[in-house]
């Protein structure tokens, strides 16, 4: 049990972050806070992948002439890092679009609070 808890300690923090992110999305009323929650969730997923790539006593995945390429355990797993570069860009793009939408919503309804927004939508004749 102790070994399990300590061996996975990094994952506990990541799971906490993920839950915080999801809580931000679900529980917060302000649209910007929802976007912040989204970003936290996304970053937590990225951290999860990167954490899964680590190896003790290994170095960054850039070929070091002193180490050579024969021993795989000398370098950490490069694949998740590469995947996460892509995921980061996706996250940036999503936040950009989210802010563009928030600006449009603000222009049209002058509020960013979800409840007020629903109220205004209901009363909107169009």
């Amino acid at each position: 049990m102790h070994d399990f808890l300590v061996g996975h300690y990094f994952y506990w923090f990541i799971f906490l972050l993920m839950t915080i992110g999801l809580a931000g999305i679900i529980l917060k009323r302000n649209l910007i806070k929802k976007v912040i929650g989204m970003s936290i969730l996304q970053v937590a997923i990225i951290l999860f992948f990167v954490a899964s790539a680590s190896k003790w006593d290994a170095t960054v995945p850039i070929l070091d002439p002193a180490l050579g390429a024969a021993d795989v355990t000398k370098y950490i797993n490069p694949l998740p890092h590469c995947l996460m570069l892509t995921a980061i860009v996706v996250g940036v793009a999503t936040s950009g679009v989210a802010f563009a939408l928030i600006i449009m919503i603000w222009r049209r309804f002058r509020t960013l609070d979800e409840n007020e927004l629903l109220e205004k939508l209901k009363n909107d004749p169009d």
Partner: protein
Amino acid sequence: MKAANVLVLVAFCGLLIYAATGFPNRGDALSVTNRETSPAGTPNAPAHYIRRAKEEAHTDNMVTAILADYRGYDTLGEETVILTAGLICYLLLRRERSGHEKE
């Protein structure tokens, strides 16, 4: 409503912790992803990348080699995603400027 939302969060957290019982320890050099072959005996990609990226892609940085060569199509998709974001901002927000330019 609030209770249902909290319940969703608790369920989510529970699922994650349940999944973690199957994870290898962090940093374990002998975990499945770090081995030479997968459980079914097929070759594992990361070991190949580490060994042969220099010969095959002529690049020291393995991440760069994977990003732009082995899995280059993903990166094309990534560029497309960010172009999409740019085009959406263009579509949604750009109004005054293009008006000014024309007049």
